[in-house]
C-alpha cells in the first residue's frame, strides 16, 4: 500500500493553500502538524477526494484517483474537522446509513456497526438520538464511522479538538487500536496527541512541508538548541522578546524559561532534552502567539 501525493497544489485566488506537496506514504501513523491556516485540512480534503487539486495528482499503488474511481473511496476512512451529524438519527442508524454510503452489505453493516459501537463505548447509547450526545461521544462516533469499511487509509482531521484531557487519552487509544497496517494521517495542533502515537511527523507551514521525519529523530534538528534558564521576573519579559520562549514556569520569585535558540541565551543556561512541542513552537511560535493574541482580543 502506497499513497503518493505528487506536486499537489491548491490555489484560492492568489492564495496558495497547498503548495507543491509531494510525498509517498506507506502504512504507519503520520502526525500532520501545523498552525491554523497551514493547509492541513485542505491537503486532507484533497486526499479524500472532496476537494479538487488545482494541479498535481494523488495515486494509490500507482493508479490515479480518477482511474480508480469508486474503488479509491473503498480504501478511505475520513473523519473531517467539525463534522456534523444528523441530530435526529440514533448512533446505530447513523452507522448503518454510513455503512450503506460506504457500500457495505446489510449483514456486514450490522456486524461492523455493533462491533465498532462497542469498541468506542457507545453500544449502550446506540439507540439514543445523536443530538443528546456530548462532544466526546460525537467524536467517538465520528471515528467509528470512519472505520466502518476497514479502510487502509484513515484520515483524521483534528479529531481531539474540543475534548477534555481524559477523552483525548481515550481517543488516542482508540486510534492506536485502529492504526495497524494502515496509512493513518492525523492532523492536529495539539502536539501531545501525536507525540504518543505517530510514527512520522509531517510539519506544514504556509502550504508546504517544513519537515518530514520519523518520530524517533524528529527533534534531532533542535538537539542542543533547547535551553532552560532561571531568571528573575523582570528579566523574563526581556528574554521573551529576544528569544523563542516555549515555556515559562514561575518558581517562587523567579521564572524558569524554556528557550529554543542556536546559542545559549545566557551563561547559566543549560541544555535539555528537546520535545516535539519545542520543535513545534520553534517553527510556529509566532503564529501561535498571534492566534493567542486574536483569541484574547475576541475574549476581551
Amino acid at each position, binding site marked *: 500500500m502506497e499513497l503518493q501525493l505528487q506536486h499537489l497544489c491548491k490555489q484560492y485566488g492568489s492564495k496558495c493553500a497547498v503548495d507543491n506537496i509531494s510525498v509517498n506514504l506507506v502504512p504507519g501513523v503520520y502526525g500532520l502538524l501545523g498552525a491554523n491556516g497551514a493547509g492541513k485540512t485542505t491537503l486532507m480534503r484533497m486526499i*479524500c477526494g472532496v*476537494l479538487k487539486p488545482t494541479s498535481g495528482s494523488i495515486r494509490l499503488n500507482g493508479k490515479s484517483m480518477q482511474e480508480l474511481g469508486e474503488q479509491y473511496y473503498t480504501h478511505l476512512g475520513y473523519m473531517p474537522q467539525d463534522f456534523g451529524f444528523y441530530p435526529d438519527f440514533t448512533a446505530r442508524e447513523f452507522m448503518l446509513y454510513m455503512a*450503506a454510503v460506504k457500500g457495505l452489505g446489510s449483514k456486514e453493516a450490522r456486524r461492523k456497526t455493533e462491533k465498532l459501537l462497542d469498541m468506542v463505548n457507545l453500544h449502550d447509547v446506540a439507540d439514543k438520538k445523536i443530538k443528546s450526545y456530548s462532544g466526546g461521544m460525537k467524536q467517538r462516533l465520528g471515528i467509528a464511522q470512519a472505520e466502518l469499511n476497514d479502510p487502509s487509509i484513515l484520515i483524521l482531521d483534528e479529531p481531539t479538538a474540543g475534548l477534555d484531557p481524559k477523552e483525548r487519552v481515550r481517543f488516542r487509544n482508540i486510534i492506536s487500536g485502529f492504526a495497524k497496517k494502515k496509512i493513518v494521517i492525523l492532523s492536529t495542533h495539539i502536539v501531545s496527541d501525536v507525540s504518543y502515537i505517530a510514527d512520522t511527523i509531517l510539519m506544514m507551514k504556509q502550504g508546504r512541508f517544513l519537515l518530514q521525519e520519523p518520530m524517533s529523530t524528529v527533534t534531532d534538528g533542535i538537539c542542543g538548541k533547547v535551553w532552560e534558564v532561571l531568571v528573575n521576573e523582570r528579566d523574563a519579559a526581556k528574554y521573551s522578546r529576544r528569544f523563542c520562549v516555549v515555556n515559562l514556569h514561575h518558581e517562587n520569585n523567579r521564572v524558569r524559561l524554556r528557550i529554543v535558540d542556536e546559542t545559549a541565551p545566557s551563561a547559566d543556561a543549560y541544555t535539555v532534552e528537546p520535545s516535539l512541542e519545542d520543535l513545534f513552537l520553534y517553527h510556529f511560535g509566532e503564529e501561535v502567539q498571534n492566534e493567542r493574541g486574536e483569541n484574547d482580543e475576541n475574549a476581551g
Partner: protein
Amino acid sequence: MMKTLVKYEFLKILRKKSTLIVMAVSLLLTAFLFGLPILQYQTYNADGVIKGIDGIAYTKEQYLQISVPLTDEYITETIREVQGLFENPDNIGFDGTEKFLIGDTYWNDIAPRETLLNLIARNYVKPGIYVGYNSMTDLDVTNGANFYEARNAKIEMVLNDPSCELSAAQKEYWQNMNSKVDIPLQYGYYEGWEIIFTCFEHFMFAILAVCITIAPVFCGEYQAGTDAVILSGKYGKTKLITAKILSSLAFGLLAFTIHVVVACGALLAAFGVDGWNLPLQIAGTTVPYPLTFIQATLINLGVIYLVLLALIGLTLLLSAKMKNSYLVMVVIVPILFIPMFLTPSGTTGAYNLFLFLLPYRSTMPEIGNYISYQLGGLVLDLLSVRAILYAVLTAILLPLARLGFKKHQVS
C-alpha cells in the same frame, strides 16, 4: 443498498421538525381553502337561501329532473316552454333594461334548471357575451333549436376571431378536437367537479410546502458539515445522490398526494362524485376538449404533478448549488408566486403564451380557452405543452442537481 440509502434519506426528510410543521400547516391551509366552497355554498328557493350541505343536497335534487341527453328535440321543447312562460304578462318583471320571470313561475319553472337554461341561451349568442334564460324569447325555433349547429357556428366565431390570432393549422387542430365531442351532450349534476376546477390553483401551497421540505436535501449536508464524510464514501458521488433524488421525489409525491386526497376528497365527499362521466361541454358548450369531468380532472392533476416534479428538480438543483435552504427558497418563492400577480391580457402573444406556462398558471386548466402553441407544422394545446414542458424540465433539472452535488467542493 439503494433501498437502504433511500430509506435513510427519506427518514432524514421526514424526521425534521420543520418538515412536520410545514406539512401540518400546508395540509390545514389546503383543507381550509378547499373546504371554503362547501361552507360558502348557497342556493335559493322560494323560501329563501339554503346554505352548506343542505344547499348542496337541494341542488342535487333539482338536477334529478334535468339529467337528460340534450337532444335537439329536448332543447327545442325547453326553449318553447320558456318562451311560453314569457307570453303571460303576469309572470314578467322588468328592471328597466330587461324582462325576467317572477313569482311562482320563476321558482317553479326556471330556478330548478336555471344553469341549464343559461347554458342553452348562451349557445346562441356571440362568444364572450353572457346572457340569461330571458334571451330565449329572441330565439326562432320554428324549425327546431338546431342546438349543435349553433354550437359549431359559435366555435367557428371563436376560431375566426381576429383577437385569437389562430393560424390555419391551429384552427384545424381545434376543429378536429371539437369534432370528437360526443353529441348529444348528456346533462346532469356536476357541481363538485366544477368547484375542483376552480380550486386547482390552491395546490400551489402544497407545492411550496414540498419545496420547503426538500430544500435542505443537498445544502443541508453543507450546512451540517456532513458533506465531506458522505462525499468521501464509496457511493457518496453516485448511488447516494440517486437515493437523495429518489427519496425527495417519493416524499414530494406522497406529501402532494395526501394534499390531493384531502382537498378533492373533502369536495367530493360534500358535493358527491356525480357528474364524473359527464362531458365538459355541459359547463360551456364551446369547451373544445372531448373529455369527461373526471378525465379532465385527472389530466390537469397529471399536469400539476409534472409541475411538482419539475419544481422538485429545480429545488434540488438549487439545493446542490447553494449554501443553505433559505437561499433556495429566495429563488423558489418568487418563481411560484410572482405569476399570481400577472394577469393574461388575452390568449395569444408571447407574453400570454409564456404566462400560461408558468407554474402558478399551469395549475389552472383553462379548458374553455383555445390556447395553442405552434412549432412549424406542429400544433399542441396548452395542456399538452405544459405536460411536455414540465416533463422535459424534470428530465433536465434532476441530472443537473445530481451533477451539482457530485461536483461540490468541500471548502
